[in-house]
Structure formats: structure tokens, C-alpha cells
């Protein structure tokens, strides 16, 4: 498993290649990339970036929580490997925020585990987005729909 909480930008192509290369015996690899939306089109006159994002994180807990999520996924599906990379600090438009990869013998388990990881990450991993636009900065509000998606995976 490869769990990373990092300030530096990462390349989604390079990370996918690395993950695939170290899981040559897996028949299925599923990746998810969450990226900062590019809002720059809103100010076409100046062409300046009118939206930036800052990701606040709880450093010790973030690593621990992502590792716990990966461990839970491994207990639910027959996975060969998991990678989770999550950024913190300042982000530029169109940069990747999160990268999740799962490797399994067949696609069903890889797809399901990848979706599970993202749904739980969205409601459990201690990160907070702050967006800055022309009218100032504001903390992004949590969505009820994210809670609903996470609840689907609760064991009854």
C-alpha cells in the first residue's frame, strides 16, 4: 500500500504508471482523480486566475485515517494493492487533489473498492477546502449527498 499526504503536486500519469508497474499480476486497476475545478473562465477579460484553493489538513490524523480506510477496503474486497495520495496546502486550478488506485484480479472488486474509498474519504479524512474568488474567501460546506453516499457502505 502507498498512502501519502503531501504538499507537492503529483503527476497523475506517472502515479498510474508506477501503480500499474508494481501490480503486473493484477488483471484490473481502477483509478480515481479528484481535481480542482478551473474557474478561470469566469474572468475572460484579465485571464487571471480568479479562484485559488487552500486545503487545510490535520497532518497526523490524515495519514492514520487514510491508512484505516485502505485497511477497511482490503478487508472487504480481494485487493492486491491500494494507493491514496492527498494534497494539502495551496492548489492551482486543474491540479489533482486526490488520487486513489485499486488493483484486483477482476474489475468488479477494483471498481467497488475505489468508489468505497472515495465515499468514505469524503466524509472521514480530515481535510478542509477554502476557496478564494473575487468576492473573498470561504470554507467549502460539506454536502449532505456525501453523507448519503458514505452511508451506503455501512455494514448493517
Amino acid at each position, binding site marked *: 500500500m502507498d498512502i501519502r499526504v503531501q504538499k507537492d503536486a503529483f503527476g497523475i500519469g506517472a502515479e498510474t504508471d508506477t501503480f500499474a508497474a508494481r501490480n503486473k499480476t493484477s488483471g484490473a486497476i481502477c483509478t480515481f482523480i479528484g481535481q480542482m475545478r478551473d474557474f478561470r473562465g469566469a474572468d475572460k477579460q484579465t485571464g487571471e486566475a480568479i479562484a485559488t484553493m487552500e486545503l487545510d489538513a*490535520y497532518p497526523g490524523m490524515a495519514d492514520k485515517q487514510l491508512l484505516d480506510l485502505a485497511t477497511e477496503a482490503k478487508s472487504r474486497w480481494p485487493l492486491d494493492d491500494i494507493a491514496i495520495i492527498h494534497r494539502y496546502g495551496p492548489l492551482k486550478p486543474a491540479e489533482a*487533489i486526490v488520487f486513489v488506485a485499486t488493483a484486483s484480479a477482476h474489475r468488479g472488486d477494483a471498481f467497488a473498492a475505489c468508489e468505497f474509498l472515495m465515499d468514505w474519504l*469524503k*466524509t*472521514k479524512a*480530515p*481535510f*478542509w477546502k477554502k476557496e478564494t474568488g473575487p468576492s473573498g474567501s470561504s*470554507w467549502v460546506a460539506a454536502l449532505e449527498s456525501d453523507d448519503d453516499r458514505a452511508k451506503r457502505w455501512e455494514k448493517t
Partner: protein
Amino acid sequence: MALNILYFAWVREKIGRGDETVTPPATVETVAQLIDWLAGQSPKHSEAFKNRAQIRVAVDQTHSAHAAKIAGAKEVAFFPPVTGG
């Protein structure tokens, strides 16, 4: 017992600091009681903890309910619902 308190996102901005070490009285046994006690420490604390339903808690880096006991805890963090990913 000295307790390390951490604040994140708008909770940190409202309180004006990211961490502090506090020594609550022995009568403070749960997270909810700790919130009540912290809210009484300054107008900024009071404002940050005004809407309790928006406050999430981690005791020693594990998500916890407001009803959770804090006996033996070293670190308690307060923050809004998470919005990563």
C-alpha cells in the same frame, strides 16, 4: 490533566489560534462538557462553538461523538465537517 487542543478550518479562524494547552476541571468528563467549558474561556471561543451541530471532534486522532469520554486523552481536535477529496 493538561490537554492539547487543536482547531482546524473556520473553527481555528474564529478562535484565532490553531492549538492551545488547557487544564479543564475534573468535572469535565465528556467532549460535550469540554466544549461547554472551552466556550466559556473567551468571546472568540464562545462564537466558534455557537453552533454545536457543526462541530466535529477527534479524540487522540479518532473521530468521536460529543458524548464520548475524554478520560486519559492527550489530544482533542475540533473542526467543521470535512470537505477533502
